[in-house]
Structures are given as C-alpha cells and as structure tokens.
C-alpha cells in the first residue's frame, strides 16, 4: 500500500507537488494521470526516496523507502527507460540488482524469461531498442517479486504490440494482489488498464476515484415530468443535484441510475428520461485544463473546482464508509 501524506515539493516559487494526500490500495491498477509537468514523476521519485519532499511524506507499507530492509522485494519500480549501465549486459545488470538485495541468481533467469529477453541476456544494454529497454526495466522491477509496482510512463515509445503486452502484464500483476501504480499523461492508455484513477494537474490533486465513478459524476440526466417540481424535490432529497426549468429537470450525481425507481416510489410520472455522458477524455480535459491554464479554460473555473472537489469527496466518502 502506498500513502502520500500532504506530500509537497517546491523548486523555488514553483510548487511541483502541492499538498497531495492519498492512499493507493492493493490488488488493482491505479492510474496516475496528469499532463506533462504535472508533478507525477516528482511524486514517484519522492516515493522512492530519490528526491526529498519539501514537506509531507510518501510511504510504502507505512515506511519511507529508505527504511525498507530489502527494498527490491517490497517495491519494484520502472522510472525511465535508461535502466542500467549501457556497457553492462542485461544479465549482469540484473545479477547486480539481485546481489544487492540478497535475491538468488536463478531469479534473474526467471525474470528474463518473463519479459521475453532470455535470448539477448548477454547483449550489452547499449545495443537494446527502446522496447527492449522497457522490458528490461520491467524485469528489473520484478526481480525481487515485490508487492508494490511503480511504473512511470511505461508505454512511452513502445510499439502497439509492446503497449498491449505491458497492459496485460499490469493487469496480471494486479490480479495477483499486488499494488500497481502507473503514471501516464494519456488517458486513453489508462482507460482500459486502470481500476482507479488519480489525476493531478499543476502539482495538485484534482481527482481520486474509481474509473467508473469518474464517469458517473459527469453523467447528466434530463427528466421531463408533468410533476417536475415535486420530482425535483424527491431527487434533491436523495442527494442528486437538480436544476429545474419548467417541466424539465437536469440531474447529476452518484445515484443517477436510480431516478426511475425514485420517481416510481413516489408515483410520479415521467415522460422522458435521457442520459448524456461526457466521455472520460472530456472529464480529464476539464480537470486538467482548468488547473493548467485558468485563462484559456473553456469551462468556468468554479465549475472545475467543484467537479474536482466532488470527485475527491465522493471517493473519500466511499472509503470512509467501507
């Protein structure tokens, strides 16, 4: 389990990571989304003890990375495709890693097979293509058979086959009960892979929510009813947000799928019930554009702020209730 406690990193006046608090659970793939420069890599580097937080903490299983006795057996990380020294062979690179953490050397052969690099194990890393380096990076991350896996932009520069391969790999790892924390600046990469999304922009947390919730929040329903004002009252009491205009009500909120049954329960007639879903891309664009550049933002700033707040509060409400 990964926890950020008010994690903050400043470079002069720039707040690269700004007061982020969140918990990343086990057994699922958590996507860490944000535009380039949002602070994803900085947050991950602090998690691995490479960079020092200005304030706050980044913990793995409740401990800072530097205090882990055998870090590779707890956390595997792929930070950049430049794993290892270019003059070393893939095998000796992994062997060095294994030795550093007391991992038996047969594990080296095992991970090389896992990522499909067994045949080039004795070639120098410098001669590898980007895709091969990425596979080697994943082999390095898996060397200690860790519970927690951290991947920073793992599909960058990979061909479609490699992308599919990495996605399935991450799903498999999560299915085995591990914590998989993956960053990306592209939502489309995460949409098929992640169970949970954490979105940051300009160093700030703008969303922390299961993937489907993120979609639900932005779904709106249009309800037409002859008894619109009474229906609006009922829906409002059920925690949905309601805008009444004549016979038509615009509804959004978590229990959006229960509109029909709520109306039925009160014997209120509905003439029309239709849903419009913003695509996940739209949500992401709204969330991040808002925080990236307030002036050029299409959506009013307060809308984005409330959307972000809603998403964050939704998920935290769920966590506390479960």
């Amino acid at each position: 389990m990964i926890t950020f406690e008010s994690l903050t990193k400043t470079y002069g006046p720039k707040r690269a990571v700004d007061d982020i608090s969140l918990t990343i659970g086990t057994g699922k793939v958590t996507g860490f989304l944000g535009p380039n420069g949002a602070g994803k890599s900085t947050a991950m580097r602090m998690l691995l003890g490479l960079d020092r937080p200005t304030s706050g903490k980044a913990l793995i299983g409740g401990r800072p990375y530097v205090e882990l006795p055998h870090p590779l057996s707890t956390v595997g990380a792929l930070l950049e495709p430049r794993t290892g020294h270019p003059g070393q062979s893939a095998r000796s690179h992994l062997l060095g890693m294994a030795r550093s953490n007391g991992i038996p050397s047969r594990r080296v052969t095992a991970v090389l097979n896992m990522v499909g690099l067994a045949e080039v194990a004795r070639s120098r890393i410098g001669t590898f293509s980007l895709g091969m380096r990425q596979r080697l990076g994943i082999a390095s991350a898996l060397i200690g058979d860790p519970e927690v896996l951290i991947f920073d932009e793992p599909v960058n520069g990979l061909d479609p086959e490699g992308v599919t391969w990495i996605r399935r790999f991450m799903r498999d790892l999560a299915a085995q009960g591990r914590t998989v924390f993956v960053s990306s600046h592209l939502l489309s990469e995460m949409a098929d892979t992640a169970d949970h999304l954490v979105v940051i922009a300009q160093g700030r947390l703008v969303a922390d929510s299961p993937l489907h919730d993120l979609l639900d929040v932005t779904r709106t329903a249009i309800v037409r009813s002859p008894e619109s004002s009474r229906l609006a009252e009922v829906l409002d009491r059920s925690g949905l947000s309601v805008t009444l205009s004549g016979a038509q009500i615009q509804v959004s909120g978590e229990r959006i799928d229960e509109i029909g049954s709520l109306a039925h329960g009160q014997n209120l007639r509905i003439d029309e019930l239709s849903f419009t879903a913003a695509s996940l891309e739209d949500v992401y664009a709204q969330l991040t554009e808002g925080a990236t550049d307030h002036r050029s933002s299409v959506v009013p700033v307060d809308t984005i702020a409330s959307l972000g707040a809603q998403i964050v509060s939704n998920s935290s409400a769920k966590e506390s209730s479960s």
Partner: protein
Amino acid sequence: MSTPTTTDRTAALPRTTRGGCWWGAIAFEWTKLSSVRSTWWIIVAAFVAALLGSWLLGASALASGRNGLDSAMPAPAIVVQTMLVVEIVIVLLSTFTITGEYSTGSITTTLQEVPRRKQMLLAKTAVVLVTGVVLGAALIVVGTPVASASASQFGAFDAVDLVRAIVGTGLGLGLLGVFVLGLATALRSASLTIITVLGLLHLVPNLLPLFGVDAISDLVQYLPNQAMAVLAVDTAGPYGWPTAVLILLGWAMAGLLTGYLVLRSRDV
C-alpha cells in the same frame, strides 16, 4: 514476442545467505565495476604503461650508471616512479564508478537497490579501495622484474625495498581512489573531477613554490603524490611512513566526507 507469463505468487523468495545489506551492496558495486568493459581496458592500459615505463626508466638508470652517474635505484622504486603517470588509472576508475552512474542515469536504479546513501557510498568506497590496493600491489610485482632486467646491476634491491613498494603503492592508489570517489560524488562530472584531481596531483606541487614563501612551499610535501612517494620508497623523507599513511588517510577521509555531505541531502 512472448506472452505475459508472470509467476504465481509464491511465498517470499528465499534469500541468499549473505543477502542484502552490506555484502549485497558491495557485491552489487563489484558486479557493476567488473562487468563494464571500460574497466578492463583501463586496467590493461595501466599494466602496459607501468611495464613500458619501468623498462624505460630502468634502461635510463643503466645508461646513466654506465656513464659514471650515481643513478642506481632499487628496481621496485623504479616502478614506483612510473606511478606518477600510471596513477591516472585509479583516478579514472574511481571517477567513473560514480560519474558513470549520473551520466547514464543508472544512479536511480542504484539508489532503488541500495537506498541508504551512506551505505551506497561506503560500498563503492570498499570496492575502489580494494581495487586500488590490489592494482597498486600487482603493478609493482609485475613491474619489478622488468625494471630489474633493464637496469641490471643499477637496479639491485632487497626484500624490504620490494615489500615497501608493494604495500606503499597499494595503499597509496587505494586511498587516492577513495579521495577521488568522494570528490567525484560531490561534483558528479567526470571531466570536472579529473581536471581537479590532476591539477592537485601535478599542477599544485609546481605552483606552490612560486609564492616564494617557505610555509607555502612546505605544503607540497603533504600532497597525495609526495606522501605516496614517502610511503613506497625506503629513503629519508621529510617525514616517516606513519605520517605518510596519516596524510593519505586524511585526503581520503576529506574527499569522502565532502562527497557524503553533498550526497546526503541532494535530489538525484
């Protein structure tokens, strides 16, 4: 290529007996140093330079001796003289041990494996020290017969000369390597480190006397090269070998401490 086949979750991996911690960190550093080809090229170059230098200096001693000059010198001491040039090898090895990590970005991998920075630096120190000691000793052992052959009777030596040269050069190169490692850790740049060290070893001894002040000129004898010469050759120096060891230790500790203080709080 291959299908994703991850292993089933097994109970924790069995650990090798000397696993992790200090042995692991040192084994890791040794694996890196020894598996990079440039390391072996540099070492081969060291032997070539030391043997060639020993032969030339030996021949020179022989020629001068035959012309009636007092050029006789124990063969091991002839080899020690070549260290003025050959020591660059340990400077390079030691520098690349850390700057190579920064230039290739593998420092991030290294610190993921050995996240405690003190441990990482001390593991590198151990590897550099042992490499320097073994290399220094080996160069004397191999170079002495060559110097002895080419200097003939003007290179006569006894066991004390040989042992002194072996131990002195070994310790000298080892501790010089540690000093350079610390400096390179602080500077992170290979070129900057090498220039600084060569300046200290070869330029500063020539610059200090230019001030014309005795107190400043005397400082020269406390520089690494001068201390190494006292340590490796059994002649009457400005101070004895124990002081020479202390001076070299002082340089090594100063370099290492500088490196550690900078490394401790620096973002990678």
